[in-house]
């Protein structure tokens, strides 16, 4: 169908009108879109920073609490250990320092400087022992190694050489003022005692 020239002109005018309207509207549209996007990005970035700060703050506080707890636990542990050690030292000091420089046992043995063992110094002891027809004069020395006491003496044939060695168990009774030393032989070069021999001495220190 043929279009009348007048109708064609009207159609062209309409096209131009739409084109002009599109151009006029595109500016504000882009401005509105750009503005909205800008505001959205600002809000989003602030919300991102806020949530990240909250997360970090929580994690940091947890980490600090954990570190503090660990340190506190370490402090308590070391304090307890220190207390225990001090208590042990006090007990040991009191244990040894109570003993006079010279104490005698009921059967005539003499113990000298037992209280100085705690300072790393040796203590001495002596006693006489009758075996058969003979009387032996035994001289010995006690040393402390760690928490244990060790002795070496001349219990044996000769009075000049170390023939017997071993460990000493000690027991103090503050009620009776009695100190019991138990010598347990672990090395014997003489022929008077055997390995595992036990000799007891009861010293009165009060």
């Amino acid at each position, binding site marked *: 169908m043929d279009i009348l020239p007048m109708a064609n002109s009207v159609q062209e005018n309409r096209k131009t009108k739409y084109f002009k309207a599109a151009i006029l509207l595109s500016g504000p549209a*882009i401005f509105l*879109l750009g503005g909205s*996007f800008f505001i959205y*990005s600002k809000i989003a970035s602030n919300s991102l*920073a806020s949530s990240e*700060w909250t997360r970090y*703050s929580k994690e*940091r506080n947890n980490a600090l609490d954990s570190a*503090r707890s660990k*340190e506190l636990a370490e402090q308590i542990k070391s304090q307890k250990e220190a207390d225990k050690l001090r208590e042990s030292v006090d007990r040991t000091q009191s244990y040894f320092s109570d003993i006079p420089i010279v104490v005698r046992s009921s059967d005539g043995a003499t113990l000298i400087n037992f209280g100085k063992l705690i300072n790393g110094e040796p203590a001495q002891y002596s006693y006489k022992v009758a075996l058969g027809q003979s009387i032996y004069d035994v001289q010995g020395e006690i040393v402390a190694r760690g928490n244990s006491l060790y002795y070496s003496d001349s219990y044996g044939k000769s009075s000049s050489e170390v023939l017997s060695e071993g460990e000493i168990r000690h027991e103090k009774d503050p009620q009776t003022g009695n100190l019991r030393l138990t010598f347990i032989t672990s090395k014997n070069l003489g022929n008077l005692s055997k390995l595992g021999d036990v000799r007891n001495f009861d010293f009165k220190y009060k």
Partner: protein
Amino acid sequence: MNKLSRPFMHSILSYKYYFASAALFVLGVGLFSAARTSFVPSCSNPHVIEKLKLILSAQTTGQVYSVNKVTSVFDVNQIESPTSSSRTCAAGVTIEGSELGTINYIITIPAPGSVEKLSLNTSLN
């Protein structure tokens, strides 16, 4: 207004809406461009400053920790043009009353899937 300039002004005025539209178009494009980098929070964003203070005020390495009190953050500046994922800033920091110096910090948006939503790397200038 003389007779010569009248037709020119008339033609300018008849296009005033087109000029306004073009100006808004340019502004809109500018806002789009600015929005691209606005997803990274600004240097002086209060949450960023708070995180910066927290980072500087506590260090936990293994079982050792120390806490310093950051008393103020001042002279906050952006020192490089931001990108769509990071922004470099500098700020003066005072710890417990004494000035520590200038801290450079980079605000970065990590890759998706990261625990951190925003990472803050600091260095003493």
